[in-house]
């Protein structure tokens, strides 16, 4: 059973032009997939349809074999939102951020149990923030903050890890380090990863598959098979 299955999906926001046309996409368990494309090309919309946050006007979207918008057992998804910024003004430690990611798995009521605390500590260690666990998040660089949010997604022991523009606003070195971290997570945990970015340079050498989105899927395959001109940022893609 594929983790993600979109068939002939069309989508437009109310009163707007079509954003996606006839999109068919299948992601198998354990794949590391990069979804790339220009800003406004529809990749975030595609992601929202995959996650069941938007319903397509035509076609079907299934997640873990169930209709995406009515999926039960959503704790199987770990999601790093675009420009992951804190929704709160209060100071917050790395450990508090990561522990929040344990809620979907543990349930709404009551304190964390010892096995939850172990998972939280393990997630923090995996992203290399063990020595900063008690530090206020605001004292960390952008790249390290993204690592904390990845740890938050990992704390729920997800089967599908979805990252929307995780490298936005992060310097090149931190982008490389994040990409290496994701590659390591993929090979260690065999978690299915959907990595959405307007550019894919940092992860290109790690991913199994690259999907380019521009109003629809214009390329789907091995990054090595991508025509050379797509790598040229100055090229205007049709």
């Amino acid at each position, binding site marked *: 059973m594929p983790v993600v299955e979109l068939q002939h999906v069309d989508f437009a926001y109310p009163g707007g032009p079509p954003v996606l046309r006839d999109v068919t996409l299948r992601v198998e368990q354990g794949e590391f997939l990069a979804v790339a494309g220009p800003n406004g090309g529809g990749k975030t919309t595609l992601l929202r349809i995959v*996650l069941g*946050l938007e319903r397509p006007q035509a076609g079907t979207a299934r997640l873990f074999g169930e209709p995406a918008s009515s999926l039960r*057992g*959503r*704790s199987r*998804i*770990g*999601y*790093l*939102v675009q420009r*992951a910024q*804190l*929704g*709160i*003004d*209060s*100071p*917050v*430690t790395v450990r*508090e*951020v990561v*522990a*929040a*990611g*344990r*809620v*979907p798995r*543990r349930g*709404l*009521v*009551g*304190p*964390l149990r010892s096995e939850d605390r172990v998972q939280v500590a393990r997630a923090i260690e995996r992203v290399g923030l063990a020595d900063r666990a008690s530090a*206020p998040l605001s004292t960390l660089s952008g790249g390290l903050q993204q690592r904390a*949010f990845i740890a*938050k*997604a990992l704390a*729920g022991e*997800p089967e599908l890890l*979805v990252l929307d523009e995780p490298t936005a606003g992060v310097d090149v070195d931190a982008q490389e380090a994040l990409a290496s971290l994701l590659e390591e997570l993929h090979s260690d945990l065999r978690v299915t990863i959907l990595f959405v970015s307007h550019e894919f340079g940092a992860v290109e050498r790690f991913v199994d598959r690259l999907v380019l989105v521009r109003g629809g899927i214009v390329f789907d395959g091995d990054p090595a098979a991508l025509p050379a001109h797509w790598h040229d940022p100055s090229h205007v893609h049709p």
Partner: protein
Amino acid sequence: MTLLMSILDADFMRLAFATGAVVGVLAPAVGFFLVQRRMSLIGDGIGHVAFAGVAAGYLLGISPVATALVASVGGAVAIEWLRTRRRAAGDQALALLFYTGIAAGVVLISAAGALNANLFAFLFGSILTVTRGDLLLVGVLGIVGLALIAAFYRALVAAALDEEGARVSGVPVGLLNVLLAALAGVTIAVSMRIVGILLIAALMVLPVIAASRVAWSIRSNMLIAIGIGLGSVFVGLTAAYYANLAPGGAIVLVAAGAFVVTSAAAAFR
């Protein structure tokens, strides 16, 4: 200490302090999540609806605290419904609630012929009006409110930190928002005797903002806010007793003073 003991000689002050202790803990604990969700002004809106509830109590001849509780929880849930169903933008939903609440209150209170000093006590708080029945109701509601916050603490934090991420992973964010709104309604009803309908929202918000200047984590922010809330209530009530002031104003001014102190402390850190 002697000063405090002499205040506590008076029965009405013991009732006021006991009620104030519940208010001082509950208001910042609920307010913490309202501030983080950028819903700081919702307390004001619910306060106006609580005013209509108090007026209905006078008209019907039943406990104004009980009718205010029903009105404020109902109003809080209504505003959340309006906001999430996109029937109205957040500020429009608040405006609807604000003005309908205050207008209904004025109409009901004039129909009941109760435009008098008792009403003034509900608007700005009073240390003389807390009854044993009020204290029992406030105590029970306060314990239920705090128990709910303790039980749902992690989930409320998760929804405040990253609403969409929590929603995608199956956290029922809408349900938590309704719970939070209802808790805000309970807090208003519980607090209005001491702080007053027009000022209670300030006690939910100011201690949290003051604490955030010196806190280092979510937990420390909440605990320091509760400390400031309790301190503001006790100092404010004491000042109100000795200087014959409206306690609501005195309490909120102490909380505002705490903000100045913590901001200065943060600047010198």
